[in-house]
């Protein structure tokens, strides 16, 4: 008896259908399982406009507060051993925009510092912005490179073992 020849593409398609017959069920199971997990993961995705809006708002507030405050003394870059005064505690603003930290030049700092993309530390730091290695992008918001900030933060932490971390958290 003569056997028929069948097109290989047809056989290939049939074999693939058989091979992946379980796939729709797997995909459905997957969709059910991950919907919860995805909700948690995507919460961490902060849209760019929110970041930019936060930066803009913080810069404006820092600028306004800076106008009301007397200029800070020209102290060392990090004065960590002195108690914080009311002045120091007021009006400190560091905001994070990509790899640059913006400071209000007149104000000492006791605020949240973004040390890394995913880690922020609330820490009392006194900074005289005029002494900072500034790469100025505008008169009102002199900038401090992230690497410099991290270095100073590390030095600061080293020098103050008794520091009170108001918070150290991942977000």
């Amino acid at each position, binding site marked *: 008896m003569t056997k028929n020849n069948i097109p290989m593409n047809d056989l290939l*398609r049939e*074999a*693939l*259908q058989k091979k992946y017959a379980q796939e729709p069920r797997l995909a459905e199971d997957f969709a059910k399982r991950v919907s919860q997990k995805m909700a948690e993961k995507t919460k961490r995705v902060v849209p760019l406009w929110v970041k930019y809006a936060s930066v803009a708002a913080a810069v404006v507030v820092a600028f306004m507060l800076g106008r009301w405050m007397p200029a800070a003394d020209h102290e060392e870059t990090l004065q960590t051993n002195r108690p914080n005064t009311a002045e120091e505690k007021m009006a400190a603003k560091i905001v994070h925009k990509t790899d640059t930290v913006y400071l209000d030049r007149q104000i000492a700092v006791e605020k949240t510092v973004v040390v890394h993309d995913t880690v922020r530390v609330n820490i009392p730091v006194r900074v005289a912005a005029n002494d900072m290695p500034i790469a100025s992008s505008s008169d009102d918001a002199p900038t401090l490179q992230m690497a410099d900030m991290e270095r100073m933060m590390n030095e600061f932490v080293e020098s103050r073992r008794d520091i009170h971390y108001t918070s150290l958290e991942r977000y």
Partner: protein
Amino acid sequence: MQANEQEMVAAVSRGRPGSHEAVMERYGQEVFALVVKLVPDVLDAEEVTEDAFVKAFRNIRQYNSTKAAFSTWLCRIAYGLAIDRLRQRRPPTLRLEELNVSGEMGAEDEELFIEEADNHQELLHRMLDAIDSLPPEEQILVTMFHLENRPLRDIAYITGEREGTLATRLHRIRKKLHQIMTDYDKE
């Protein structure tokens, strides 16, 4: 791009609450179906798929609707991550181009035939074995083209290869499968 797809992308890029889940719900199964063909371990495939969506959400502004449909863009990201995962998990395989399999035909331009066996199921199992003997990258190519009927243009976008190269690869893969099947008959 369809209107609601456009809205969906815009919502994600604005960070509207619930938009990520909506995208996941709509495209999750398609992306997972692609990934699981490359990464057979279901848990690994789930992880790669999740990572693909997170990566897509973070880079949503890079999506260009004139180049590909949103689902194709998602598949492209997932394909890249799945290939990375494969390379971490297994030793490198020999690409078909490195074997001495001749042929420069296009994707559709040659009809190959197999002699029907007495038992069709047996023939089907032999074809399944032949498919399983291919590296995952080649399996996914024939799957996208022959099972999912994706246009060569989309497969090229997903895999990052040129259409001409893909057509040649598909032809060679089919010839290789044909050779495996006919060699089996001779044994």
